[in-house]
């Protein structure tokens, strides 16, 4: 069994995309083993460092992914793709 590789299209999701991960978070809700992480996008310089406004989602633990495809089905932007 090969390594699971999950990709998110950041032109659809995140500060440079159509959806703010703070408002959506559907992939985070639906992934039972919690593969995804919502974190500050360190590329952006924040106006207020105590209240960052630029958030991004990264598939941080692909080794626990069970390939159930629920994240791909639930994403409103079809931003997630997977291969293994």
């Amino acid at each position, binding site marked *: 069994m090969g*390594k699971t590789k999950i990709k998110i299209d950041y032109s659809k999701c995140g500060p440079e995309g159509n959806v703010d*991960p703070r408002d959506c*978070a559907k992939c*985070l*809700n639906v992934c*039972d*083993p*919690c593969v*995804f*992480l*919502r*974190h*500050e996008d*360190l590329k952006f310089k924040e106006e207020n*460092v*105590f*209240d*960052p406004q630029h958030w991004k989602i*990264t*598939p*941080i*633990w*692909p*080794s*626990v992914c069970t390939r159930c495809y629920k994240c791909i089905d639930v994403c409103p932007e079809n931003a997630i793709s997977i291969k293994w």
Partner: protein
Amino acid sequence: MCKWCMQHGIGKKWYMNARNYSDQLADEYNLREYLTEQWMNFEAVYIRKIAGISSKALGYKLQMPIIGKILRWSVERMIHGAVKHPNPIRADGHIGQVIPMEDAQIILSKLAAEPIVETYCMCRKMQRGINYQCCINFGVLSEVLEKLPRFIPKERAHRISREEAMEKIELHNKNGLVSTVWYQPYPYINAICNCESPECGALRLRNDFDLMIMSKAEYIINLDQDKCQGCKACVSMCQWNAIRYIPSIKRVIIDYNKCFGCGVCRHACKHDALKLIPRQEFHGFDGHF
């Protein structure tokens, strides 16, 4: 007792040593500044690169032939704050231990430095995308977190009294959450979180990658096999999958290697069959936390 009890417990459990909670200790190490640095971008800790490597896909990276072993050694050093200059952005020296409800209540009633706040749990925010108010912080960490609006509930008060904190611990334990006490950084103690798997970062690193960021409790469960009626209520409470029901003998069995001694299963048992005993007194104890 675990190694931190030896080093910082002065003859007791490390988290029962009052000095580890004191504001003086925090001032000595400039921990207001350290913790502010750590918490400002704490959610990004897993994607930050250290020596060119981030924690992304850590499960796969640790499996690599030689580099995996070096990586494991390096990460363990950082976790235990055993590096020359603890770095707040990497959350060096952030280590914890599972504690049963009673020990958590002792800490909150006698040892924790006020003000005590209950904030949104960072792990559930970043891994589950929800706001869940269950992380109890105290000492200088309270004022640090009050500067970060995303962790402070708007509709509810976040500052709580010692009595309220003790009641919340009981509520969280009865809900099946595991109380954990934290060095942050070593040797200063300022948080008791109520964890669940797989959202909790520490449980992830310990359960899935065998990194010693979180130790088992100083206790272990003891099942009274005669009292167990086989109602199975405890089975779903165990976050470590240490309890299984065996239909042919009509009672549960415990995997004592998996038990972390959190004691949460006791709250589901109506037959008084589950009790916590000191881990040292367990016959099979081999010094492994």
